[in-house]
């Protein structure tokens, strides 16, 4: 069996289980032996993966939620499984539940991006890339047909699609045409490479000598994305050869965590001053200078903007009885954003 098939399948099992049980750990599994057995029974047979689509599984095996418990008490009907076996697997849209019905038809499209960047010792942006996902949460009745188009697909470097996406319209016009699964799913993932700039800068400076090391870190906005950048943190691992560290900042809080990590939580960058953190590290006796240079890991979040510049043009819905509500959001956060010193 191909290794990736096994790993992908295990990941899928984990996803389905945590979806069903609202978490995944030893205790949860112990409490829900039966559901786990039932699920595994349908997901794999004789070592070969069968049904892993959450929508179909949900039709075969009821979720152990409060509603169904209450329902069974009230009605006295103890079976928590629908009586008939769904015909959906035979339908042309295997990922979709047969004919769901909603009073409010809604669909939400989220652009979620992660920025990976590496800045080297000289402050040069070595690598900057965005990995993004188009996440859709659909609560639509019947068998709707959706088309999603972007304003600027040329920036995308590589794309991967949920099986529901039709390939031909994408190949010819860069339009996503699909019949969505029910509920939350990942419609598309993409990569944008060779970005030129990051929204914030982090400038660490280490000078060591005489058994101590002076650390100064400056943070500020480099390229204003137009929306607030929040949840900014900077952290770095203190080298082993350090006896003690004394760090302070002019904004936010600095904590030295138990695993010798120094975490500086900044939050938002204030208008009037540039946040900075400084302090002294005391080296082990006998060590003159610091030879190991820590890497600073930066986290931030920008709501309302996809930093790659990808923009949704429009979303058309067909095959729907009444006008649905359409919602769009965008979010960028730092992925592996690291600054070397």
């Amino acid at each position, binding site marked *: 069996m191909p290794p990736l*098939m096994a790993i992908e399948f295990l990941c899928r099992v984990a996803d389905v289980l945590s979806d069903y049980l609202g978490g995944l750990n030893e205790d949860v599994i112990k409490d829900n032996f039966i559901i786990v057995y039932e699920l595994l029974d349908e997901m794999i047979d004789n070592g*070969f993966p*069968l049904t892993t689509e959450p929508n179909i599984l949900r039709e075969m095996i009821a979720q152990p939620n409060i509603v169904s418990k209450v329902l069974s008490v009230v009605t006295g009907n103890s079976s928590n499984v629908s009586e008939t076996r769904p015909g959906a697997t035979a339908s042309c849209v295997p990922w979709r539940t047969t004919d769901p019905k909603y009073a409010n038809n809604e669909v939400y499209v989220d652009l979620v991006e992660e920025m990976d960047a590496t800045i080297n010792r000289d402050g040069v942006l070595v690598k900057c890339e965005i990995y993004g996902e188009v996440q859709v949460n659909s609560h639509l009745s019947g068998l709707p047909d959706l088309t999603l188009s972007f304003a600027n697909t040329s920036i995308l470097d590589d794309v991967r*699609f949920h099986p529901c996406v039709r390939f031909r319209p994408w190949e010819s016009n860069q339009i996503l045409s699909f019949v969505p699964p029910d509920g939350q799913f990942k419609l598309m993932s993409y990569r944008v490479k060779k970005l030129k700039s990051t929204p914030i800068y982090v400038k660490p400076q280490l000078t060591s000598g005489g058994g101590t090391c002076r650390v100064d870190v400056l943070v500020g906005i480099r390229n204003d994305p137009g929306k607030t950048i929040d949840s900014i943190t900077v952290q770095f691992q203190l080298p082993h050869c350090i006896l003690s560290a004394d760090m302070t900042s002019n904004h936010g809080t600095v904590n030295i965590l138990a695993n010798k990590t120094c975490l500086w939580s900044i939050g938002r960058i204030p208008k009037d001053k540039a946040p900075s953190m400084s302090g002294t590290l005391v080296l082990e006796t006998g060590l003159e200078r610091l030879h190991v240079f820590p890497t600073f890991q930066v986290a931030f979040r920008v709501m309302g903007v996809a930093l790659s510049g990808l923009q949704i043009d429009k979303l058309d819905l067909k095959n729907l009885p009444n006008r649905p509500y359409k919602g769009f959001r965008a979010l960028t956060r730092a992925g592996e954003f*690291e600054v070397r010193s």
Partner: protein
Amino acid sequence: MAPPAQSQRSPSPSQPSGKGEVSDLKSQLRQLAGSRAPGIDDSKRELFKKVISYMTVGIDVSSLFGEMVMCSATSDIVLKKMCYLYVGNYAKVNPDLALLTINFLQRDCKDEDPMIRGLALRSLCSLRVANLVEYLVGPLGSGLKDNNNYVRTVAVMGVLKLYHISASTCVDADFPAMLKHSMLNDSDAQVVANCLSALQEIWSSEASSSEEASREREALLSKPVVYYFLNRIKEFSEWAQCLVLELVGKYVPSETSEIFDIMNLLEDRLQHANGAVVLATIKVFLQLTLSMTDVHQQVYERIKAPLLTLVSSGSPEQSYAVLSHLHLLVMRAPFIFSSDYKHFYCQYNEPSYVKKLKLEMLTAVANESNTYEIVTELCEYAANVDIPIARESIRAVGKIALQQYDVNAIVDRLLQFLEMEKDYVTAEALVLVKDLLRKYPQWSQDCIAVVGNISSKNIQEPKAKAALIWMLGEYSQDMHDAPYILESLIENWEDEHSAEVRLHLLTAVMKCFFKRPPETQKALGAALAAGLADFHQDVHDRALFYYRLLQYNVSVAQRVVDPPKQAVSVFADTQSSEIKDRIFDEFNSLSVVYQKPSYMFTDKEHRGPFEFSDELGHLSIGAESTGTVVPAQRVEANDKDLLLSVSEKEESGGPSNNASAYSAPSYDGSSVSAAASSQMLSELAISSVTGHASQSSLAIDDLLGLGLPVAPAPAPSPPLLKLNSKAVLDPGTFQQKWRQLPISLSQVYFSTMT
């Protein structure tokens, strides 16, 4: 699925309540068994849950078998499922009791609800009791013809299970033929996929004994069947698609246009969300185009982006599996990936197994245009907190230096490493400088100046110390105090624990003696005396050898120990190209992740002794000190992981290979070793398939990694055989598109590759 049957195990002391509770349950179940009161299912369910959870934690509840079966008369599907689970778990160890269940399972197989029919059939087949197989045939037969797809999917798998319990029953009931019929005719894709998977398994294991089965197995790879699957591929679930793609990968098209048609049809699979599908598709593309060098290269260009995306999404385990495949491709065609070198930069948080692969790829893709940036990046890792990675990256810099023409800047960097005052950095750098000097003796002046400043007292690691001593011996002419350093090292002979270092010391002092006799004479005498008294056999022998050589004739001794050397042009590769090709043929399997062909971890004889690698280490030291050039990896042999030492062992199996490494310094041994080991492999193949005459030719083809047609297909000639036109582009446009992809390599590479 079923938890491990632990019924044999006596309840451990930590579960003292087990026995009492089980008998409690027993009586409770008894009470419920006959009752038909409303709400009885709820109380049954609670009890069943208890039973199952005991079973799962390993308490033996097999004594409840009778009661459980009695309670199984219910319409509640969850109860039934629990009951099936229980029965499936204990039937094997209680074959007599299992007979009790046959009745109710058979009845459930005729239930109105297809779900229950399917579940019952599955449990029936999972009993795994050999003397009950006769009861399986009937339900399976009707299951295969059931009008519900769920039941049919289960039945197909049931046939496979039956085959594993009793192959003869399965074949006698003519199930394979029925499966074949459903495979080609069923409307449900999952049924078809299960048929394919079951038939592949059945016919492969039957093939050795029955000619018909082996014919059938080959027929699976015939054009009609492969086209049939390809045309339906989009109906299949992602897992079944992997299965189909694997089948297509083995298919050998007869014409070029077919290849393009298949690739055209499958191209969108490269954008599938499931990484397994993407990799399986890549394998098909690579296999199909093996004989078309230019298109094969375009395949590399095309699959680059999907692979790189796969690496950056998903869990570390997923990205490692993808990275291993990427690694394989990068090693085969580094120039195609040379512009993407930034993707192989290491991230601080990555696990070190990922970093290690990335470092190797960075080394491979370095060329004239990107070397500067790559080396700069690597140098940053040298100050990394993670010491093994820091070491790896220094080695990587060295390797790049060895494969480049313009090494100016790199030499400077290496020398900077020597001045970094970190012992492991210095140690690694010393080893590298030594290798560098063997390839580029012209740099000796610059290097010696720096190396001369390093005090041998600060070097602890044997390999680094040996490297330093080698340089002292080799360049004693230019290093002013070389004899005196050697002398002080010899004075501490007793404290030197590594035999490798002592061997090098002997050789170095000899070389030094030939160049500066008066200064070294005393040290040489001391060294020979210490060597003769050494408890280590190799050291002792070498000292004795040198002593007698000097006694016989000093100039002869000089010719033996310190002959004029040619610079090494190519350091031998660790893995033979034969082995690499084998791994490539096994693309999308564990072989790629382990970096060795499957026979090495599946055949018993190959898994065995690892002691051999140790011996090899000693051998290599001996070889080096004779002054001839030894492949770099020999020196490193000790710290290569076990995987590599196995592959080395494999290589050295061909005696001709070893001999050539000794005699010719700049000899590129790969071709000989490839020939030698391929011969060995074919012998191995023949010996392993004796008795399976019908299979032997296949097996050899397979082992030699030739993409030859498996056998002439049984020539069915349906004229209507065509791939459907659902593909994205029309064939003409597609071929056009593929021919236009940028070409960025010399043909030399591909001629070696095919």
